[in-house]
Structure formats: C-alpha cells, structure tokens
C-alpha cells in the first residue's frame, strides 16, 4: 500500500487497462495533454490510435462510443465535465442505454463515459451539476461514483472491464485527495457498497464527494458515543441494496447525503427503497441532505451554503436521533 492522489490512482488504472486490453481506446477533448491529469502521459505510451483528442463535439463523441463498442472495441469516452454530458446526451439516453435491449442482446456495449461531477470550486452552474440521478433513471447505464483513490482505481478497472455502458463520475476538484492504494492491481466489483464505519444508532449513506464530510460527522459523533454506520454505495447502478437494508434494519435510522439536487435525487430513491423495504425497522423519518433544487452558485459563500457539508449532516443526525 502507498498513499496516492486520486488522480494518480486513476491515471495508473487507465495505464494498466490500456496495457492489458489492446482493444481499449480512449478519446475526448484534450485527453492527450490532459486537463485533469487523469489521462496524462498515455498518448506517449499508446499512440494516437488509442488515445486521441477530439474536436469539441460531444454529440458525435457519445455516439461514436456506441458505434466503436458495437463494432468490437472497448471504449472510454472522456466527457470532461459532467455538464457536457447534457450536450452529448442524445446518444447516451437514446442509444447506449437501450441498444442492447432493443436488439435482444445481439451486442454488448463496453463503454465508459468518464467525467467529473459536483461543485465546490466556484465553477458555477454550468460546471457543477451532480447529474447522476438522470443517468440512474435511464435503466441501461451503470453509474459509478468513487469517493477515495483506492475506489477510484478499483472501480475504474471494473467499469472498463464491464461489458455494459458505465458512467464513471469522479468528484470534481477532488483529484488531489490522498489515500492508501494497494500496490498490486485490484478490481472492485460494481454493485458492492463499502461499509466505512460500523454503528448501531444510525445509518448514513453518502455518495461521492459527500463521503468525506459524512466521515467527519460520523467520527465526531463517535467521540460522543453515538455509533453511526457509514455506507458508501460506490456504484448507484447497480445499487447494493442489501447492505443498505441490512444496516437500516439494524439501526432503524437513515440519513442520505447526496450532492444532487433534491428532487428525484439518488437520495430520494434510496429513501424510497428503505421506506418500502425497511418499514418496520424505521424508528425515525428518513432524512436527505442534498442540494435544494437550485443552480450551483459561483460565489464561495453561496456555494458553500447550498452544498451538503458536515454541519448540515450533524444537524440531520441530531434531528433523526432526537426523533421520538
């Protein structure tokens, strides 16, 4: 194990997969020089046949991924910021998510759509959306939201090896976060959540960049004798419902921390699942700590105010624990 930055872990995973799978190609805007550093150096090793800059043409890019995958390649389509997925949304929503089904399984589509999502760096509304719920609702797309360098690497490998379309969303601006990463190659199966803390009093499910403030809140409460179980689903489709249900059945209390806008968020969905499946176990209302249906503002204090943070999580914890 060594400490690595998230972006380095991703870069190494990409490198390893490129080496391992000669049918793997990656294209996107400025991936040769790499804006975020995730694809840095790859073009020198693998050449422009396999790592290639595209024009700014998200519409054709997302569809090219479908065609190249259908024709036998394993494709990473790098979409930079998640908001640009809206620009290239047609082929993701109308083609990638449906083509295997519509052809009764004639093909599989091993595609990874890669981008960053979420706010926190004053990138303003058009660069800060957390749009995973929209992908989750498509039905035919797996959705991966790593929260640590290790998960980022292990889930990326799994995403690349998965024969289905995957949207891989790295938390924006968190590339510099450090964490332990195993030295050997490892894969984290899609659909397996991580239990980051054990606890008996309350369950928190936190997604992507929200895991950090949740961890802080959980550890803070631990010092006060409150046992919170913290679950990072890691992949939202498929969702490890069983681990979540098991925890909620044990604790009877649930908070979900999600950087999406509240309405139809991942938090809503997980809440609805538990409201159905863990009904008898619930001792308090399920709380969602989310973004309040707003475009993400530019100015730091405004932005800080709309994003879920430790304080808001703490407040939710108090509310849920105090509920009688």
């Amino acid at each position, binding site marked *: 194990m060594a400490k690595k930055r998230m972006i380095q872990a991703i870069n190494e995973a990409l490198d390893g997969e490129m080496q391992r799978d000669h049918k793997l190609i990656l294209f996107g805007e400025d991936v040769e020089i790499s804006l975020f550093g995730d694809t840095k150096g790859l073009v020198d090793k693998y050449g422009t046949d396999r790592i290639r800059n595209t024009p700014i043409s998200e*519409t*054709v890019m997302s569809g090219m991924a*479908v065609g190249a995958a259908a024709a036998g390649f394993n494709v990473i389509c790098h979409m930079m910021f998640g908001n640009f997925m809206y620009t290239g949304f047609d082929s993701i929503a109308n*083609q990638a998510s449906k083509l295997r089904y*519509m*052809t*009764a399984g004639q093909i599989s589509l091993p595609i990874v759509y890669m981008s960053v999502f979420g706010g926190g760096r004053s990138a303003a509304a058009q660069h800060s959306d957390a749009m995973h719920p929209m992908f989750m609702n498509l039905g035919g797309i797996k959705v991966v939201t790593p929260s640590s360098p290790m998960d980022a690497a292990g889930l990326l490998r799994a995403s690349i090896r998965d024969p289905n379309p995957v949207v891989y969303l790295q938390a924006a601006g968190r590339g510099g976060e450090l964490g332990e990463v195993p030295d050997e190659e490892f894969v984290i199966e899609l659909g397996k959540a991580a239990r980051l803390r054990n606890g008996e009093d309350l369950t928190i499910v936190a997604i992507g960049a929200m895991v950090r403030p949740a961890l802080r809140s959980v550890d803070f409460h631990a010092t006060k004798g409150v046992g919170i179980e913290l679950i990072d689903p890691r992949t939202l489709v498929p969702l490890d419902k069983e681990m979540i249900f098991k925890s909620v059945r044990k604790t009877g209390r649930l908070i979900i921390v999600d950087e999406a806008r509240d309405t139809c968020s991942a938090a809503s969905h997980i809440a609805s699942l538990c409201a159905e499946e863990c009904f008898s176990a619930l001792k308090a209302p399920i709380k969602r700590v989310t973004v309040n249906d707003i475009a993400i503002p530019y100015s730091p204090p405004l932005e800080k105010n709309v994003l879920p943070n430790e304080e808001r999580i703490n407040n939710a914890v108090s509310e849920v624990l105090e509920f009688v």
Partner: protein
Amino acid sequence: MADTNFSNEQMLKLYESMLRIRKVEEQLAKDSKEGNIPGAVHLYIGQEAVAVGVCSQLSDKDWIASTHRGHGHFLAKGGETRLLMAEVYGRDTGICRGRGGSMHVADFSKGIIGANGIVGGGISITTGAGLASKLANDGSVAVVFFGDGAANQGVLAEALNISTLWQLPVIFICENNGFSEFSPTNTVTAGNIVDRAKPYGTACETVDGNDVIAVWQCAERAKLRALRGDGPTLIEAHTYRQRGHVEAEATFLSKKYRDSQEIENWVSKDPITLFEKRIVDAGQAKIEDLQIITKAIEVEVNEAIEFAEKSPYPDSGGNEQQYMFT
C-alpha cells in the same frame, strides 16, 4: 442511366434485391392497413435503388446503420425476410425478439447496426463503427443511410469534421426523398445537402437515387476512397418516397402536403420498373426470367408472413430485465 458491363447474373441479383424490398413492403402496407402491425411503419417504396446499389458493395463485415425507414437497408444488406417480418409483427422469432420492431431491425451478424428511431441517430454510431474499422484495419467500411431531414441535425457536421480529420472509412449516404416528414425538403433545408461536405474537404457526390447502377458505381468510388485511407464521402442520392411518411398518415393528417401529379411523375421513374425495362431492353433477361424471380420472392414473403403469424409473442417469463445488461 449509368452504363455498366455487369453480367446478366449480376443484374438479376440487383433486381431481385430491389424487388424483395418492394414485395415485403407492399405486404407490410397491407398489413398496416389491416391493423396487423402493432406500431408505426415507414415504408421505403421508391427508394430501393439506394439501399441495393450501396449494399451490393458491402459484405457482412462492413457496417451499415439506417433510419426509421430501415427495412430496405436491412434486406439489401442480407437481413432475412422472415426475421424482419416476425420482428415487425412483434414476435419472439423476430430478429430482435420483438423488443425493437420496425424502427429497430438490426442484425449484427450481418453488419447491420440497425434502423433507428432517432433522426440522425445512426450518424455518430457509424462514425464510431468506422473508427473501429480503421483501427481493426480489416478492410471493412462503415456506411450510414439518413434522410434529407436528418441532414439538418448538427451531428452530421460533427461527424464530417471528425471523420475527415481522422480519415475514417465512413460513407455518409443522404437519401433525399423530397420530404422531411410532411415538409418539402427546401422549406427546411438551405442549399444543397451534398455541399455540406465541402468545407471539411470531405469527398462528395450526388447521384440519381433511382438508378441502381449509378448508385452502385458511386458507392464503389466511395468505398475505394475509404479503403485507400482517403477518408469519408458524402453522397446525396436523389429519390422519392412514393408512399406516406408513415402508413396511416391519411387517417390523421388534416391537409394534403403534396400533389398527386408529383407522385405520379416519380412513380413513372420508379427504380424497379426502370431497371426491369433496362434489363429486358438490353436482352439481359426475358420477362419470364423476371417473373420467375418475382414468384420466388412472393413465395418468400408469404412464407415469412406465415412464419411471423405462427410465431409466439415474446414472453419475458418474469425476467423483464433480460437484455438490459449482460
């Protein structure tokens, strides 16, 4: 009509392929009217020379993608009549086991990426297939058929740009059939579609889309260009949709959008009739030879209908999500 020195056999093969499309679709027109088909059907009647001229250049390893009006491309590329028919009938024996229907017939084993319900949807997909062809370096090309209406989707510009930059073996075939649904082409389309290739330095040609030989030759040039590594070609084939945009349109449209004279004019330039005359006039076949082919196709279509009708509807058997993920 374009000159050629095709053998009698070659000519008859083209004839047969066009006629198969025609007969299948005449049947579907009837079926649609009689209410035998669950969804909408967009017929290709009048445009057969385009699909056949192009697809006769291709083998199973070449890719094609098509449109909502995609039966002709499916059949011309070697898709089986009965698998198409059963699909349009929504049966479990259909090429997509009833999941796709008329707008989504696809057979990847034949290089048929499929019809598409999204206008312009095939353009980016085919660009990607062309990228795969280039990287696999297996001598295959990728061809997309799309309409004059689809040419107004921005994705065409993006695809021309990137496929030219990357010199991808892609052939863009715009079938200008005079209408984008109910809008005459020139009311929604500025300039000539073929010219849209020029700013990118993409090769381009127009062709008489009712002349199967001319289409064949034009596609051959594009294919050679693609295989030489000279990149994509945009072909604009002028043709005409003899039937409605969608069967059943007469039942819901409140106005006429074209006059019968126009239709008649184009019917008199019907690609199959023209080709029939040409073969016979050139002595490459007798009327009776053509009748034998016609009969055989009629048998094929009837068998396909029977096959479809006798086939069960699909039943997900409690496993609804089958085929969503592998």
